[in-house]
């Protein structure tokens, strides 16, 4: 076995594909690695669709609990599970109430009753929001569908084809929706002030 073969094997065994196969066989370490790899991205993605941090945490938890429950049906696209996780996060966010019911007790178990300093959280949020307030404001004026396709294809940089596979629609449909969403976002930014659209979209 050469060094090159070791590298190739390491790459293969570390792919989502391979980890998922091991997870299906009951390898909890493999499942934990998939979790570690994608949890932050899923959480960040969830945060775009809900106002409260606790809701984003719930969505993140539900996405991974669903991934385990539906592990035999999870679709690995181009060797990665991330597209499935992000699209599932969109669906969970859309059906937040219904999704919560299934995992109510599990989610309750994940929360520890601590009294947090609400003022700190608000301050932190204001600082974070201040930097990108115009963009967030424009984003929030868009329809849910536009937000979803922009979040998946632009912010998370998934390819339209990947999203299309998971949403079971033609890739052309996703591309059309994406173009429309971009156009609407530009219009929404322009409404906020002259030149705002250019500065943000260039960035």
């Amino acid at each position, binding site marked *: 076995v050469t060094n090159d073969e070791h590298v190739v094997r390491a790459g293969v065994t570390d792919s989502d594909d391979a980890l998922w196969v091991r*997870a299906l066989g*009951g*390898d*909890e*370490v493999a*499942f*934990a690695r998939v*979790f*570690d790899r994608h*949890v*932050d991205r899923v*959480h*960040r993605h969830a*945060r*775009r669709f809900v106002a409260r*941090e606790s809701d984003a*945490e719930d969505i*993140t*938890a539900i996405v*991974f*609990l669903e991934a*385990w429950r539906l592990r035999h049906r999870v679709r690995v696209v181009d060797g990665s599970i991330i597209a499935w996780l992000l699209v599932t996060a969109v669906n969970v966010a859309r059906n937040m109430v219904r999704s919560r019911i299934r995992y109510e007790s*599990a989610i309750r*178990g*994940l*929360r*520890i009753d601590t009294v947090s300093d609400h003022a700190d959280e608000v301050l*932190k*949020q204001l600082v*974070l929001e201040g930097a*990108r307030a115009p*963009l*967030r404001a424009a*984003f929030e004026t868009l329809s849910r569908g536009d937000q979803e396709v922009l979040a998946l294809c*632009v*912010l998370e940089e998934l390819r339209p084809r990947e999203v299309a596979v998971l949403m079971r629609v033609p890739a052309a449909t996703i591309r059309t929706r994406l173009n429309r969403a971009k156009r609407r976002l530009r219009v929404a930014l322009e409404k906020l002030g002259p030149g705002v659209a250019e500065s*943000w*979209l260039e*960035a």
Partner: protein
Amino acid sequence: MMSNDEGLDPAFRARLRSELQRRAQAGDGEIRARVRARRPWRFAIVGSGVVALALGAAVFVGISSSQKIKHDPRPMAAEQTVALCADEAIIVGGQEPHEGIEITVPKGDRLEQRILSACTRLWQDGELTSQIELQSSAQGAESSDEGAQSQGLSSSSRRKAVPPLTFCALQGGTLVVVPYVPCAEGDLAPSPTDGGD
């Protein structure tokens, strides 16, 4: 473009990770165990459902059959009598004794009276009519509808005049109510219920 720098709370993340690992470790075994635990309950629920359905079906069938028995027309037909309310054709023509309206009345007490009442109503309602001008010797009242005089059998001016009716029987035994004449004059047998004209 836009991103959210706020990361997942490390404590929440750690708890979620351990919960997921726990589930992965338990694998299908835990699920199977849960299903096994639920199975007896499921059987009990499904079983009682089936029993309830069977009972319901049995009650429904029972009620349906009793309704059928109640409304079965065959026993009713056996308890009914067919009679003929004849018009004058039975007398004048003589050859067509079946002209008239057939009626069906339940068998039982006062059969003759009930048949007569039914025929009287048919005359009053104009269902049976006569070419013979009726003469009332008793009251001389005029019938406004027919231009004929009532014999007093009609209680309302709207009702048609009713001729004198006789209860007889045809050759085959069918009961018949004829106007104007006794049974013998119409070549009819006397009523079997009253023993003669």
